[in-house]
């Protein structure tokens, strides 16, 4: 094992330029992928924020006793899709209207009777914030006899659904393309390192080194380069994010878990790239 470590270290020391070049190449291809990841992440977060406003509102018939509504609200809370239920009384509705709709303040001020109905506002759990579930829940709310009308902004929710689908499809296709490019570039870089040491590999085999022995330093080297490249890519992504966040738009950065996952991905890419390159080389000579 110590010999493998030494050989790996030697490989870096003997070909510092090529090693630096591989790490840089890996770093930049992962950086591009990381930038794309940031864009995808922020689009998803934004859609999530917007989706939080998906709400099904059931208007309660005038004169319905409060206890009936309260009991019904508890039932609705028990729906598996439902995150929260709020009961807004007629008085609260008026107070809210006065507060939120300042331009109509005069009208609300001069009222003799409250024209606004009480309502039950239903918030859906994150995975259910889509048109199908909203319609489903609206239909169920309609079945309560005290419910007058149910609204959930159908057009708006349907548009949100469409946006989400497009974002997911584009993310998948573009992400896969970027990942593929990164894999090819990293594979080529590592192949260069293998070819550069073809003579050494031939000599190792002549003096009786097993394939596993020949392979081990390359795998470790690939892993190290991948992790180093991943680290550099993370740094570059962080720099890019910091610039965008302070000068362009507020944006979110990867969570530590996501960042660690990215670095691990770099390491795995380096390891796999090396395994494939060395394996192919060993089969061909």
């Amino acid at each position: 094992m110590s010999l493998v470590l030494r050989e790996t270290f030697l490989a870096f020391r003997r070909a510092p330029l090529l090693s630096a070049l591989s790490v840089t190449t890996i770093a930049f291809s992962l950086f591009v992928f990381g930038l794309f990841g940031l864009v995808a992440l922020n689009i998803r977060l934004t859609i999530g924020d917007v989706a939080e406003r998906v709400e099904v509102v059931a208007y309660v018939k005038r004169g319905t006793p409060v206890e009936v509504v309260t009991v019904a609200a508890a039932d609705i809370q028990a729906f598996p899709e439902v995150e929260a239920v709020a009961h807004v009384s007629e008085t609260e509705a008026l107070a809210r209207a006065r507060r939120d709709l300042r331009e109509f303040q005069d009208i609300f001020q001069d009222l003799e009777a409250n024209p606004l109905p009480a309502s039950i506002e239903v918030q859906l759990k994150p995975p259910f914030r889509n048109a199908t579930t909203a319609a489903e829940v609206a239909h169920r709310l309609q079945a309560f006899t005290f419910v007058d009308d149910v609204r959930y902004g159908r057009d708006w929710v349907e548009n949100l659904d469409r946006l989400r689908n497009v974002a997911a499809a584009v993310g998948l296709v573009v992400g896969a393309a970027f990942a593929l490019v990164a894999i090819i570039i990293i594979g080529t870089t590592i192949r260069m390192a293998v070819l550069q040491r073809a003579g050494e590999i031939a000599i190792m085999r002549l003096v009786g080194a097993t394939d596993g022995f020949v392979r081990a330093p390359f795998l470790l080297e690939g892993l190290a380069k991948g992790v180093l490249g991943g680290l550099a890519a993370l740094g570059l992504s962080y720099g890019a994010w910091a610039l965008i966040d302070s000068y362009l738009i507020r944006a979110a950065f990867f969570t530590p878990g996501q960042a660690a996952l990215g670095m691990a991905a770099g390491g795995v890419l380096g390891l796999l790239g090396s395994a494939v390159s060395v394996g192919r080389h060993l089969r061909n000579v």
Partner: protein
Amino acid sequence: MIKFTDVTKDYPKTGAALQNVSFHVKKGAFAFLTGHSGAGKSTALKLTYLADRPSSGEVRVSGFSTSRVTGREVPLLRRRLGIVFQDFRLLEDRTAEENVAFALEVTGARRSAIGPRVMRVLTQVGLASKANQYPRELSGGEQQRVAIARALVNDPVVLLADEPTGNLDERATRGIVQLLRDINASGTAVLMATHDLDIVKAMPEAHLVELQHGRVVYDSEEDAGPEAVA
């Protein structure tokens, strides 16, 4: 030790490199494989260290047979052989000592055992004083001595040499041949491919196999007929 039985080797592009070749190098022998370039000498050596397998026939080397040996066993065979080439094949970025030690390290030898063994073979080839020099600082003859030391460090049963003097001047050639004779005298078999007939003539007692166009045309240990070497 090394036994070729009716060996044919075809290459898809260039055709037959060896045809129905049979010869037997005995334990502890000194054998020459001669012939013009392209006669099949290098191919025969490659089959011996299992860099290639015969298209038909069998090569037996130190208990390993090409018809049975698996890919995993090849490194084990190589550790029992010492191999030397015309172009030395040293690692340019390691010293003479490191080049020799490398052959022991890859076999997983204990570190404490490596140093003394490396110095012993470097002394044997007369290069103990240049152990810390890099190949580019050594003459051709010296580089070949390092390569021979590397081949010897695993105590091989046979030393394979493919035109070991091909890149050397006459003086260095004599030195290398003498070294190979000394190695043979201490019990290691030597199979040397060469087209240098002066070397061959200087050792009339050696086993001689001559190849022409991939066929054996003379074998001093068989009653091979009249087509003797010139």
